[in-house]
C-alpha cells in the first residue's frame, strides 16, 4: 500500500478520461457541443471562414423573398425574406450560445455564493433563502421570465437579466445541499482545528468541492436555457431588429409553415440538437465525478 504512486500523478485524470470516453453517447454529445462552440467562435472572430461577411445581421434577399426548398445552392433552403437558412443558423448559434452561457454561468455564480452562505451561516439567512427560492420554484419559469421581462423592459439585455433572476435559485438550492454535506466532512473540521476562518473555509474548502457537480449541472441546464431563450424570441417577446437568433429565425417562416415546413423545422432542429448534445455530455460528466460509477 505504501509504495504505489510514481505513475499516480496523472492517474486520476486518465481515469476520468477513460470513464468519459467509454460512454459513446456522451462523446457524441461533446462532439456536437464542440461543433457549436467552434461555429460560435468562428462567427465571433473570423466569419469569412464560413463565407459570412456580417454575422450581426441576417442577409435579406427581397428579389426572391418566398421560401425556397433545400437545393444545392441553399442546402437547408431559404426562409422569408429570402434568407439562406444554413448561413442564418450558423450565424444565429453564436448569439443563442453566448446568451445562454451568460445566463447559466451568471445564475450559477450568484446561486453558488448564496447557497454556500446560507448553508454555512445557517439560521435566519438560510430560512430566508429557502422561503425565497420556494416562491421561485412555485411559479413556472417561463411565466416568471415574462413577468420579470415586463418589469425590466423587453430587450436582449433585460431578458438575460430576467433569466438569471429566474435561474439562480436552482443553483442556490443545489450548492446549499452540497455545502450541507461538505461542511460536515472531516477535512472541514481539520481546517477549523487549524484555525481557518469561516471565509477561508467557505471559499477555499467548500466552494472548490462544490464546483465539479455544479459544472455538470451547468452543462445540463444549458440545453433548457437555450430552449427558453429561443421560445421567448419565437413568441416575439424579445423585439428583434434583424439579430440572428434561432427562435426569431424560426418565427420568420411562420406564415409559410404549411407550404414550406423546413423554415421552422431546421432552426428548431438546431435548438433541439444542441439541447440533446449538452444533456448527453452532462450525463457523461456526471459519471466522471461520481465515484460510485468509476470502478
Amino acid at each position, binding site marked *: *500500500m*505504501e*509504495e*504505489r*504512486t510514481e505513475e*499516480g*500523478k496523472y*492517474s*486520476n485524470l486518465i481515469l476520468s478520461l477513460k470513464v468519459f470516453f467509454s460512454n459513446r453517447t456522451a462523446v457524441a454529445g461533446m462532439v456536437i457541443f464542440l461543433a457549436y462552440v467552434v461555429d460560435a467562435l468562428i462567427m465571433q472572430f473570423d466569419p469569412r471562414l464560413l463565407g459570412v461577411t456580417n454575422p450581426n445581421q441576417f442577409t435579406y434577399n427581397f428579389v426572391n423573398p418566398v421560401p425556397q426548398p433545400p437545393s444545392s445552392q441553399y442546402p437547408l433552403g431559404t426562409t422569408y425574406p429570402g434568407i439562406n437558412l444554413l448561413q442564418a443558423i450558423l450565424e444565429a448559434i453564436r448569439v443563442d450560445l453566448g446568451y445562454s452561457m451568460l445566463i447559466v454561468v451568471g445564475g450559477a455564480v450568484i446561486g453558488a455564493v448564496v447557497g454556500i452562505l446560507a448553508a454555512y451561516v445557517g439560521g435566519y439567512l438560510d430560512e430566508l433563502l429557502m422561503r425565497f427560492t420556494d416562491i421561485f420554484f412555485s411559479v413556472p419559469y417561463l411565466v416568471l421570465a415574462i413577468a420579470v421581462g415586463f418589469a425590466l423592459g423587453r430587450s436582449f439585455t433585460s431578458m438575460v437579466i430576467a433569466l438569471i433572476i429566474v435561474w439562480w435559485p436552482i443553483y442556490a438550492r443545489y450548492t446549499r445541499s452540497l455545502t450541507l454535506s461538505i461542511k460536515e*466532512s*472531516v*477535512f472541514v*473540521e*481539520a*481546517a*477549523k*482545528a*487549524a*484555525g*481557518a*476562518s469561516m471565509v*477561508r473555509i467557505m471559499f477555499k*474548502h467548500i466552494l*472548490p*468541492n462544490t464546483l465539479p457537480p455544479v459544472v455538470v449541472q451547468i452543462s445540463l441546464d444549458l440545453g433548457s436555457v437555450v430552449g427558453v431563450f429561443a421560445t421567448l424570441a419565437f413568441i416575439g417577446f424579445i423585439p428583434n431588429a434583424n439579430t440572428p437568433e434561432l427562435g426569431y429565425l424560426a418565427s420568420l417562416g411562420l406564415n409559410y409553415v404549411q407550404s414550406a415546413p423546413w423554415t421552422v423545422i431546421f432552426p428548431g432542429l438546431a435548438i433541439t440538437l444542441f439541447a440533446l448534445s449538452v444533456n448527453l455530455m452532462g450525463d457523461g460528466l456526471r459519471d466522471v465525478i461520481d465515484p460510485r460509477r468509476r470502478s
Partner: protein
Amino acid sequence: MIGAFNLKKYFPVRGGVVGTQYLKAVDNVTLTVRRGEVVGVVGESGSGKSTLGRMLIRLLEPTGGEILFDAPEEEMVKYREALESGDKESAEMISRKYSLLRKKGSELRKLRTRMSMVFQDPYSSLDPRFRILDVIMEPMISTGYLRGEEARKKALDLLEEVGLPRAFGNRYPHELSGGQRQRVAIARALSTDPELVILDEPTSALDVSVQAQILNLLKEFRRRKNITMVLITHNIAVVSYMADRVAVMYSGRLMEIGDKDDVLTRPKHPYTMALISSVPRPRPGEARKRIVLKGDPPNLLSPPRGCVFHPRCPMAFHECGWTAEEVAEDINYLVQGKYYNVFGDNVKVIPLQDKVKVEGANPESIKKVLEVERENIRSLTAVKEVTEDSLLIIHAFQEPKLYKESERRSVSCLLYR
C-alpha cells in the same frame, strides 16, 4: 498541560412524540494531562472518546464543565479541590486565568498553534482539492504562525520528517496511500510546533502492516519534541505500546485512570477487567479467564441510574443503581421459568416506585429464591427486604464518583469508596 473538569457534552436529539431528548455523549469527565505525557483514552466505539477529544481542542463546545489549558500542575490540583469543596471564588479565579473555553477570536487562533489533532480517517481528513503542501501549510497560514516562503520551506522539511519525499508536496491526496496520507495528516498537525496533539484513532483506518510504522513515527516525534499527546483508541495494544497513563471510558464516563502498567496488569474497575480480559495475551500459557459481559452498552438517551455499568457489571451490588423495573424483570424471568414449579401460573410481578409487588406468591418462597440466585443475578442484591404481603423493597442507590484508589490511580466504582 491540559485538564478537563466535569466535562459534559449532551447532543440534542429531536424525537417525534417525546420531544427533544439529550444524548449524553460525554458526562462528567475529569482528566488532567501533564506536560510531555502520553495519555491513552480507551473504550468501546460509542463511548464518547472522539467527542471528548474534539472538546479538548475546542472543535465542539462542551455543554458543561471546564477545560484549563497550560495551567501548572498545582493550579489544576487547586482547581479540583475548589470544585470539590464548592469554593466558587478560587475556582473562578483559576478559570479566569487558564480557561480554554473563555478564549475567543484571535486569542483562540493563537492557541490553535499550540494544539492540534490527527483524525481517524486519513481519506476524509485531507481536502481532496488541496495539494499536499497546502494541506501541511494550512495551520501555519490560518493562524499566521508562518507565511509564504517560510511556511513552504517548513512544510517541505516536515514532509521529510514524516518520511515522505519532498516531491509529494505537489501531489493531491488521492495520489497517496492511506499510510502516506496519515503521515501528511501528522505533518499538518505538527506544522505549528504544538505542545499538545490529540490523536483520534490515528491507526485504526490503516492496514495492519502500516499501523506500526505510524505508531513508531509518533513515538519518534514524541521523543524528539517532547510533545504531550492524548491518544484515543479502542485498541489496548496501541495504548500499551504508546501511553504513559490510561483512561478508560464507558458510556461517556470515565471509569478508571492510572499509570499504564498498573491499569493494564492490575485493573481495578470491573469494566476495565472485562475489557482487558478480552485482549488475547502475547504468551499463550498465561491465558487469563475471559470475562464476557452480558448485554449491550446502554442507550445514551436514558442511561442507567447510579453506576452506568451496573446492568452489565459482574460485581454489581445493592447500591449500584438497580431500579424496580430491572429487579421485576429478573424476578419475572425466574418465576416464569426456572421456578415455575414452585410458583405456578398465578403470579404477577409488578414494578412500583422503588418497590416490586409480587402478587400471588408466598414471601418465604421468594426469600428462598433470592437467597439462591443472588450470586448469579446481581439485580436481586438490591432487594432490601420482603414484606409480609410480598412487597420487595429496593435499596437506596449511590452514584459513584472518581475515587482515589492510590496516589496515581482513580476508579469510578463504589467498591473503592
